[in-house]
């Protein structure tokens, strides 16, 4: 049974259709990259899977309909890392990461978290490599450090499924590579990850499979080399891509804008 299965997903806002007939499946341990131009529905897709948007169609997690689970049950099985960094208060990294344990806490006041929660926080700090930053205030972190701290918050949920919407957008190239490695490691530990990203080379190198969205529909889905071919990229983005390989891995560089058909 697939970890995540999505069928006939459709999202409308008024008369506008943001997503149409999206179907996908994700196995445990798999990293699925969602790519596509701005406005193609990538964020809408992960939000709909996370049940944060009204939608039509079915989303199954380990055979359970996500829409039928209670908010708390859902929150334990699915972690969502949003695109917008909504954190307004300069709390410490450790306090931020501890918020990921909320679905597991039984209406307490937040102060007396159980030993299990503390261990999960430690594992998350460790996995996202932010232990050294634990007492730092968020407003003293760099963009890349902050991105890793937010990732640690999502990892602390210890949910079998992680939905991450552009977690590397604010990071420098080194942090981007680190975060991709961390997400891969998260998959190796058995989790499934749906990742929205723009960098085609990172998508090609790190993701097991890719889903290419274009105007709210799935243009292609499959292994990176199948999805990222010249004709499809031309249709989706209206760009010509320069590609090659280095040490057996593909790289793709957006080269020039072209007219779409």
């Amino acid at each position, binding site marked *: 049974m697939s970890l995540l299965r999505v069928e006939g997903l459709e999202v409308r806002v008024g008369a506008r259709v943001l997503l149409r007939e999206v179907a996908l499946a994700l196995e445990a341990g798999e990293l699925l990259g969602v790519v596509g131009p701005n406005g193609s529905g990538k964020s809408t897709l992960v*939000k709909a899977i*996370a049940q*944060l948007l009204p939608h039509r169609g079915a989303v199954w997690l380990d055979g359970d309909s996500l829409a039928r689970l209670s*908010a*708390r049950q*859902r*929150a*334990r099985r*699915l*972690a*969502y*890392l*949003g695109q*917008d*960094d*909504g*954190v*307004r*208060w*300069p*709390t*410490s990294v*450790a*306090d*931020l990461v501890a*918020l*990921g344990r*909320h*679905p597991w*806490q039984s*209406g*307490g*006041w*937040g*102060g007396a978290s159980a030993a299990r929660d503390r261990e999960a926080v430690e594992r998350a700090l460790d996995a996202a490599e932010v232990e050294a930053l*634990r*007492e730092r*205030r968020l407003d003293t972190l760099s963009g890349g450090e902050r991105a890793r701290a937010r990732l640690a*918050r999502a990892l602390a*949920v210890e949910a079998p499924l992680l939905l991450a919407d552009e977690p590397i957008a604010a990071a420098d190239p080194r942090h981007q590579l680190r975060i991709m490695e961390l997400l891969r490691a998260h998959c190796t530990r058995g989790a499934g990850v749906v990742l929205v990203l723009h960098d085609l080379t990172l998508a090609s190198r790190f993701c097991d499979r890719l889903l290419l969205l274009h105007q709210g529909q799935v243009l292609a889905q499959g292994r990176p080399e199948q999805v990222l071919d010249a004709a499809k990229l031309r249709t989706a983005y209206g760009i010509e891509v320069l590609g090659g390989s280095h040490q057996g891995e593909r790289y793709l560089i957006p080269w020039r804008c072209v007219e779409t058909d």
Partner: protein
Amino acid sequence: MRRLFAPWSLNLALLALLALASLLSLGFGAAPLTPGEVLAGLFGTGSEEQRLIVQQIRLPRVVLAWLVGAALGATGAALQGLLRNPLAEPGLLGISASAGLGAVLTLHFGVTAISLWLLPGAAMLFALLATLALYLLTRRGASNLTLILAGVALSALAGALTSLALNLAPNPANVQDIVLWLLGSISDRSFDDVLLALPFVVVGLMLLLATAPALEVLALGEAEAASLGVDLARLRGLIVLGAALAVGSTVAVSGTIGFVGLVVPHLLRRLVHHRPGALLVPSALGGALLVLVADIALRLLDTPRELMLGVVTALVGAPFFLALVLRSRGAPG
């Protein structure tokens, strides 16, 4: 985890200061009492006169200071957490002014004699309407600016309607009632006033304090908070209702007292490591302490007439607000 100090030790310290200030306030007045005499009067072991002064005359004032301060402090902290904006405050956002308008209307029409509950009921209803309006105006990712402007507009509207009520007041006695009441005070109050506000403040505070865990998570932003199982509609409902009950009922007995809900959470936020949920209880205690201290201070000042509490908090709070705005200028909203 290394901590400067635990939240409970902050609360304990605030409670101790509050007890100390209460003792001072009970002993202070035309007939000064020592702390020992105050305690004797309070627990009924002192003379008849001491008992009367402490229990009947001074205690209501002290308890009202607790209620008003706790309501304003906790509401300020909860609104700041909900709107994720350190400038949110019941006074600035027009909630107090709207509650005031509700009360003024009952004074204007001279209908307060019909029922003891009419004035506080109207105050709470108008506070509820104002909080609801603010929430509806700002729920869709509105900026700080929109929020503050909506509050300014709401305050201005409530102020204009209050002025209209004064303008059209049927007789000078009504005008004096309204003006004195608007200035905000907790002097010359009896236990009737305390009992009127107490249940609503307690229920309001309980609703607000119940939101602490959800407010912590809301620090992440609405989408991520919802993904962690926070019911945003319930959270907003609790805070809107809690704020309306707590602020509405205290405005009903004390008039409008501004800036407590802004100043107190701001001073304490650093001590709870900027955690919006952990800020609620200290803000309630700190608010009570601040109002009590302000009420002592205005009695210590040698002015031709005793200053009104609302006047004092505004005189201190408004420059504080200005300083806060100037300091946050250029910081990302």
